């Protein structure tokens, strides 16, 4: 897969992952659950935990992948440029 496609796919998938993680309230309003976790109702504590640690985890993942995609774009860009310059020279 080329760097452009990776970049687009990464942005769409990470955006969806961020939305789902921070909008757990929406998911629970669709599919309510009963019960307790760590002494709190599940529908209360899960959104709070995901809204903090879930998002923190995703920022770490997106930071790592984003940096890798930057490197892939840079590499592909250099290849495009050298190809373009060679064609120009001919």
């Amino acid at each position, binding site marked *: 897969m080329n760097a*452009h496609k990776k970049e687009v796919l990464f942005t769409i998938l990470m955006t969806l992952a961020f939305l789902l993680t921070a909008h*757990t*309230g*929406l998911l629970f309003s669709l599919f309510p659950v009963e019960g307790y976790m760590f*002494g709190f109702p599940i529908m209360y504590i899960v959104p709070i935990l995901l809204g903090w640690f879930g998002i923190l985890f*995703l*920022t770490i993942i*997106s930071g790592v992948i*984003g940096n890798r995609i930057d490197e892939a774009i840079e590499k592909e*860009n250099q290849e495009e440029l050298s190809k373009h310059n060679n064609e120009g020279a001919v």
Partner: protein
Amino acid sequence: MEEQLWQLSNPLLGVFFIILTFVLFYVVSYISNRQSKTVQDLYVAGAGVGPITNGLAMASTYMSLATFLGVTALILRLQVPFILVWIQMVLAIPLITIIYGVCLRRMGAFSPTHFIRDRYGKTASIIAALWMILVCLMYALGQMIGIAVTFETLLGIPYMTGLIVGGLIIVGYVTIGGMSGATNNAAIQMVIIALMFIVPLGAIMKAMGSTGWFFPPLFYADMVPAMLEAFPSFFDYQFSVKWYFALIPAFTIGALGLPHLAMRIYTASSLKSARSAMIWFAFIIGLVFSATYTMGFAGVYFEQSTGIMIADADTDKLTIILNMVYNPEWVTALVIAGAISAGLSTISGNLLAIGALISQDIVTTLKPDLSSKMKVRLGYFSIFLGGIASIILAINPPGFLVVSILWAFGLAGVTNAPLIIMGVWWKEANRFGAIAASLIGGIVYVIISPFVFPSIVIGGHALTDGMGISGSMFAVPLSFILLIAISYITNRIPSLNDTGIRDEVNKLVERIHGWSLVNPNRYNNNIGAFIALAACFIVMIWALVPWDF
């Protein structure tokens, strides 16, 4: 019911700590900004801020006075639904960073409208800049009023005196500090906010009998059974699926359009640094936000367990009231200083955004030949002007202010976010679509708000309409539809299709993603645009279906 007067018995204690923090902020501003010689220094701190400072500054700028005053009050009124509103607020910086922040940082933008000017031309950028000035003014105005009200109600200083003296001191420190001073100060303010909020909260929880007082953000499960007994409906979701869905256009997309948040990313020293700052932001904002939910929980618990009901007019002071009840007075004075710091960091971010919008996005757009020295002077003048305007507006504040900051999120989401998102990811987006989206979308959003025409609203629930939740669910997709449909159509009308402009746009879009050459296959996916168009249409229709409360 007996009316309680919540005020420090020794206001000088509060005044002392506030003066101390102001002196600190002035010194930091002076030291930080001595090197500001260009507009790049003034607005993006020379694009050289490290990740920890930037992450803390991002969190501090985002966390307004509302963290201490408004949020806990709304938890008291709405309980868990408002906690769920606030949880998704954490998305602002991560989504700005991955969707367009690094692209605009690569471009070297000063503000989001700087990108809009290069992408769509002068007219679209001036329209967007005017909307953004309104958003920033509403934000800054809310903080100014909050600070003056804090002075008045908790320290006994008359509102006008607090507003004018406090306001001028704030405007002074932002103006002399520029972005560099504001960033360093915001990082310090974040530490003050976290300490002054969380440590006293631990003491409050201990006094309430919680065994988890040593980590207030999460360890209060032992209070849950008592809460369920006293207030069984506290954990109820109350609202429908539609209400929770509407939070996405209102606040998640809304935050993507806030200029003072986006500008923080442009200050990063590199793209890697911007991404690292996002991680620090998520950590610190999660910590303080979680503590905010605990404070709201403790407020409801306090009311239910003691039988002392906090009057409606005093709900904004919940954090301070709990400190007055359970902690020594000097601790409450420190908490008030922390609340003022939270307001200051947001005001400084907003005033800098107003400065950039007026001087760079409006005046420099109309008069591009100004010298660099003149641009810097104009910048300082614009920051000062924005501050003075917010002080003057705060003299006679509008009544809808408590929720107006949240309403401003929607306005940013309607008038700014679609232009930036589509502009970065879809080459076909053009100036006709952008102008129509920002202008028509913005006007429709204002019309369907309860503040202008109270009878023309979509939801029919005062708080839902007032916070812009129902209005955004209609106007944000409308704005995207206008942008996509009008751009697509006008690009196929030869008389409106300037190939010179399109070539420049194509180069810009490729450049901000890191490419040197233009490839027609990149960022040109019409299928994606049509899917977005269809999704927006469905959401817009859903917004018109009667709301169930």
